[in-house]
């Protein structure tokens, strides 16, 4: 079977999976107590029946449940994510507005964690049992075990409040009117703390996994053969051990990549980063059904997409894996 037919088959299954996810999410959300009309009316601090009825009618909540579901699924099939009545904008626009900030944050964190994680894991495995190895693994354990929320707050406290080196929150300096390079540098400055905070956890995961996997593979027979051939230590590690040891890391990276678009609720909240994670969280609190469903659906699509991508990457990294595997 060629790669292409394999991918097409996977995509067809993916479409069905997505539709099932959409319907399931719809049921789940509507099962939660409260509805957007009451929340919106409640925030006004006063409401009469007329107001709640008006809102329900506008939101389409006065319709029978199956009609609401039918309308929603009908829209999804036509790639229409619906309208957010709370924010008075199409859901697709809300998500697209937040996408750049989210991708910038999650991709940077992803890059940092993957590159540093693998590099440190390889370094640590090469020095197994030595003091530097112990130091690295202890550090990784610390990052792995520390709650993200606390780490973020501490980073702000140290680097922003005490040292004053980096801005503690936000996407860029508000109202400074920077353009071009200055603006890019400004955003970069704002990016450092949240991206590092978010990246550290996964960095620790990748590092521990790479290290363990490297150590395991280095015991295998073909490594002895390579040594017997007289290859140098670094060459064996790079071409023989790492290539084989990286597969579990790719699996994990694929899982993490699937969540890139979903954003990072905690990091985005602490650092006031205007990303999708916050959009989802705030919409959930407001029971802004269409927006939450939209974010869920886009995230689900990304998870499926990256699963497929991961499978392709497997085959590049390890040609022994066939298309049907």
């Amino acid at each position: 079977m060629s790669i292409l037919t394999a991918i097409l088959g996977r995509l067809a299954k993916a479409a069905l999976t997505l539709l099932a996810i959409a319907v399931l999410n719809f049921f789940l959300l509507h099962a939660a107590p409260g509805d957007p009309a009451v929340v919106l009316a409640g925030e006004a601090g006063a409401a009469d029946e007329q107001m709640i009825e008006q809102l329900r009618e506008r939101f389409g909540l006065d319709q029978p449940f199956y009609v609401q579901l039918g309308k929603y699924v009908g829209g999804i099939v036509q790639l229409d994510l619906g309208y957010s009545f709370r924010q008075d904008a199409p859901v697709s626009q809300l998500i697209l507005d937040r996408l750049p900030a989210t991708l910038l944050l999650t991709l940077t964190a992803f890059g940092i964690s993957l590159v540093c994680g693998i590099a440190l894991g390889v370094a640590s495995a090469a020095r197994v049992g030595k003091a530097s190895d112990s130091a690295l693994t202890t550090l990784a354990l610390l990052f792995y075990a520390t709650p993200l929320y606390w780490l973020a707050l501490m980073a702000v406290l140290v680097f922003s409040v005490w040292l004053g080196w980096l801005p503690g929150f936000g996407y860029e300096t508000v109202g400074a009117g920077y353009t071009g390079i200055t603006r890019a540098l400004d955003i970069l400055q704002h990016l450092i703390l949240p991206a590092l905070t978010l990246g550290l956890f996964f960095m620790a995961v990748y590092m521990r996994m790479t290290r363990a996997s490297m150590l395991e593979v280095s015991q295998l027979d073909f490594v002895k053969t390579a040594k017997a051939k007289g290859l140098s230590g670094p060459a064996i590690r790079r071409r023989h051990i790492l290539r084989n040891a990286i597969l579990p890391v790719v699996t994990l990276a694929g899982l993490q990549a699937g969540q890139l678009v979903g954003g990072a609720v905690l990091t985005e909240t602490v650092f006031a980063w205007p990303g999708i994670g916050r959009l989802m969280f705030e919409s959930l609190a407001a029971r802004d059904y269409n927006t939450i469903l939209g974010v869920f659906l886009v995230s689900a699509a990304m998870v499926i997409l990256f699963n497929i991508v991961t499978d392709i990457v497997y085959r590049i990294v390890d040609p022994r894996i066939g298309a049907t595997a």
Partner: protein
Amino acid sequence: MQHLLKATTFLVAAALAAPAFAQDDGGRLDIVVQPEPPGLMLGLVQNGPTQLVAGDIFESLLRYDTDLVPGPSLAKSWEISDDGLVYTFHLQEGVKWHDGEPFSADDVVFSADVFLRETHARLRASLAYVDKIEAPDANTVVFTLKEPFGPFINAFETGTMPIVPKHIYEGTDFANNPANATPIGTGPFKFDKWEKGSYIHLVKNEDYYIDGLPHLDEVFYRVIPDAAARAVAFETGEVDVLPGGSVENWDIPRLAAMDNVCTTGKGWEFFAPHAWMWLNNREGPTADKRFRQAVMYAMDREFMKDVVWNGYGKVATSPVSSRTNFYSDDTTMYNHDPEKAKALLAEMGYDGTEVRLLPLPYGETWQRWAEAVRQNLSEVGINVQIDSTDVAGWNEKTANWDYDMAFTYLYQYGDPALGVSRNYTADRIKKGSPWNNVEGYDNPELDAKWAAAATMVKPEDRAKIYAEIQKEIVDDVPVAWMQELEFPTIYRCNVQDLVTTGIGINDGPRNAWIKK
């Protein structure tokens, strides 16, 4: 006595605030807004964050000082007829909408009679007393009432009756008008930009009809979702103003102790947020008046104020806040008296039935408050289970009466007929909304008094009836009054004249200026 005190304080403050320097123009103010408002069209959305931001864009006919005395805004003067039925407003001249169109009395008539009647639940209740609204000429508006309605003079606040542009909204579907995204008002600041999730930017209205105002060039409302991050934003100088309630209470003393930082509890008089626990009057132990009284005696509300609220606020003694008109202190005082509580419980034969307590899901302070209540009540043998949920779940449970005790707080809008009676009269017992008589208190005799007091012309007559109501209702304990909440505003001391009205920061930037 209290008014005399207030007046003296005011004079002293005025004397202190009048040294011989001019007000500096220019500069920008960064204010925290939390949570991000769902929209800025004040005629459609009236939640707290929307009022905070849109209060600079839109205006009403009057403004109210911190003693709730009305003053001019879009109306430069006004008269009320002796029978309390005819309110005549003379409007400012030369007022323009932000898009350059002239403002006139027609806009006021359209706003009150057409737009807000359809969209504004709270104003609709007051408009029920109005017979007709007319504009005899371009600068005069006359409201004629069907019967006198004492609190009507309080209806002309920005969040209550925002004046919206007729030329943009007439004949359109208000809720879906594209102009809602770029609101047009008459206020001192114009809408410029809303970067969702980050900030809202307002710029000075150069054509504002009062010479010399506003002083500021621009105002940024910053969206920072985490309470600790908001405190940090103030510490690092990113923001200049933390409106009341935007940081957790335990952060306030630390921030207030910083250099060049001032705090004020003023600017909430119009709202006078009043916190209580609804006690379900229909079923369970809370249906027994003795149980409800026992709850009052069991609680050490002074302690809760000092510990949970860091000393901010005042223990509530009546359904009417001491900051609202017609407050009376001639009522039973429920001091912390566990023995009395135990005696009441023994008398009613309380059998230890579990009661569910629903905290308000507005952050850590409220959670701790609920825990303090549980501890106090368990000391007298009441078995309390805390039943936590999120905002939507809280709305659903309280609106459907699925609780035994539930925290809440409501604004009073300066008058018992606007913000107090709605929680106690039988005609406001309606499932489906948590902003009415949720506890199910039914007292026909008092209902008649609430109704009578609302439509009396003379304030002294109203005061007498309201005092009678307060005396009686406090003995019934339909709800457990907790505290008159105080949300201190924290700001840099060089920001001057920030809080001058009873709605505080909501229309504060109009007069604010930054001392150089």
